[in-house]
């Protein structure tokens, strides 16, 4: 009758969210299609001029991907609240922070990872030099989990309110800005042949901080949302 150990519990949680996401594959495809369509439209709107597209390619890809991530953000906890799963998570003998961390990881895997996989394609469509693509990918690998973590805290904070989408977008904007600035800064520096490690390090530092603090904030916010 032993209480289950932590690692299998986290594994069960992660597998649950990934299975649910896989059963709703069309939801995963939506951000990817959105990013593809937006990136495809830019050359049509701006004209197929190589130099112009090259200059703005990094920025376009970054902003498109971050916006695509927001599409699925507000659904992160809503289904769990509606069907009562969240109550069961709160009452389970496991630290809620870790379980929510697993949920955030599942969100990143199902939303951000497919986007990162198609990034080389998006970058190539905008004539981004091949040498810069690894830096872009590195910047995305650090910036997208940051958005997932920040987003999760805000979704948890607005979980109790009806139609929280607008509020969520307004609150997330200022948190996205630093991530975009540093990621775009790294890409621009790499494009100009300058050292790009400093902005990447800033992103990494912010990510470390967010990995530790965001699940704690999420757990506290959701406990308060249920206690009403």
């Amino acid at each position, binding site marked *: *009758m*032993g*209480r*289950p150990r932590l690692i*299998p*519990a986290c*594994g*069960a*949680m992660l*597998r*649950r969210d990934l*299975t*649910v996401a896989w*059963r*709703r594959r069309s939801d995963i495809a939506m951000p990817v299609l959105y990013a593809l369509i937006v990136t495809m439209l830019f050359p049509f709107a701006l004209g197929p001029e190589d130099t112009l597209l090259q200059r703005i390619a990094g920025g376009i890809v970054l902003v498109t991907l971050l916006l695509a991530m927001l599409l699925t953000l507000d659904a992160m906890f809503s*289904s769990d609240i*509606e*069907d*009562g*799963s969240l*109550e*069961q*998570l*709160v*009452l*389970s*003998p*496991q630290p809620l922070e870790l*379980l929510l961390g697993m949920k955030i990881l599942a969100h990143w895997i199902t939303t951000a990872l497919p986007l990162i996989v198609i990034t080389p394609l998006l970058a190539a469509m905008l004539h981004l030099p091949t040498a810069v693509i690894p830096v872009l990918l590195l910047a995305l690998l650090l910036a997208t989990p940051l958005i997932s973590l920040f987003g999760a805290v805000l979704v948890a904070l607005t979980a109790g309110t009806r139609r929280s989408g607008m509020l969520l977008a307004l609150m997330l904007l200022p948190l996205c800005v630093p991530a975009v600035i540093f990621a775009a800064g790294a890409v621009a520096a790499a494009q100009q042949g300058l050292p790009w490690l400093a902005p990447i390090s800033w992103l990494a530092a912010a990510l470390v901080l967010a990995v530790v603090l965001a699940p704690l904030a999420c757990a506290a916010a959701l406990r308060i949302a*249920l*206690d009403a």
Partner: protein
Amino acid sequence: MTVSIPHTPLLEARSVSFFRRDEAVFAPLDFDVHPGQLTLVEGDNGSGKTTLLRVLAGLLHVGAGELRWRGAPLRRSECAGEILFLGHQLGLKADLSPHENLRIAVGLHGQRAGTSIGSALIEVGLSGYESEPTRRLSAGQKKRAALARLLLLPATLWLLDEPYANLDRAGIALVNHVLKWHTDSGGAALVSSHGTTNFAGDTVRRIHLHE
């Protein structure tokens, strides 16, 4: 199997009440829950049955009064996993099958010795539906899948909010059977209902809630 009731109650409530907008949802309550005991929480709609159970589960904070667990002030970190709450929302993912849902519950809460997911599903009458997505089950079948969780998880105190809702005659008998099995093996349960249940326990205690 005879169970001697130990001296210390499992759960003690000492003038417990809960406030919503500074208004008490129910009058201060005093009661004990002993191992092997069934307690029925009765009251009309809106009298605070669900609120009481959510307070006891720890989802809502205690407004006033004190809760004690095994003789000591109740701390959630100590009794987590020993208290199992089944509310109106059953906590089943609609995209997963009953078997997958139960496997997750076992992964999070642990498993009662000598039980298996397969046998629990058979016992609640869901054999043949193990791998059907829960969204395709009827309301009563979903309830049965949630009842299978009670059989599997190693909890001592069950807090069941309207467990009879949506169930047919056989389902009601199943709930009573499961409750008897739980109390016979030393567990305790608080069950809410709005009055018209065929409650088949011999040592039933009742808590009345009034507006």
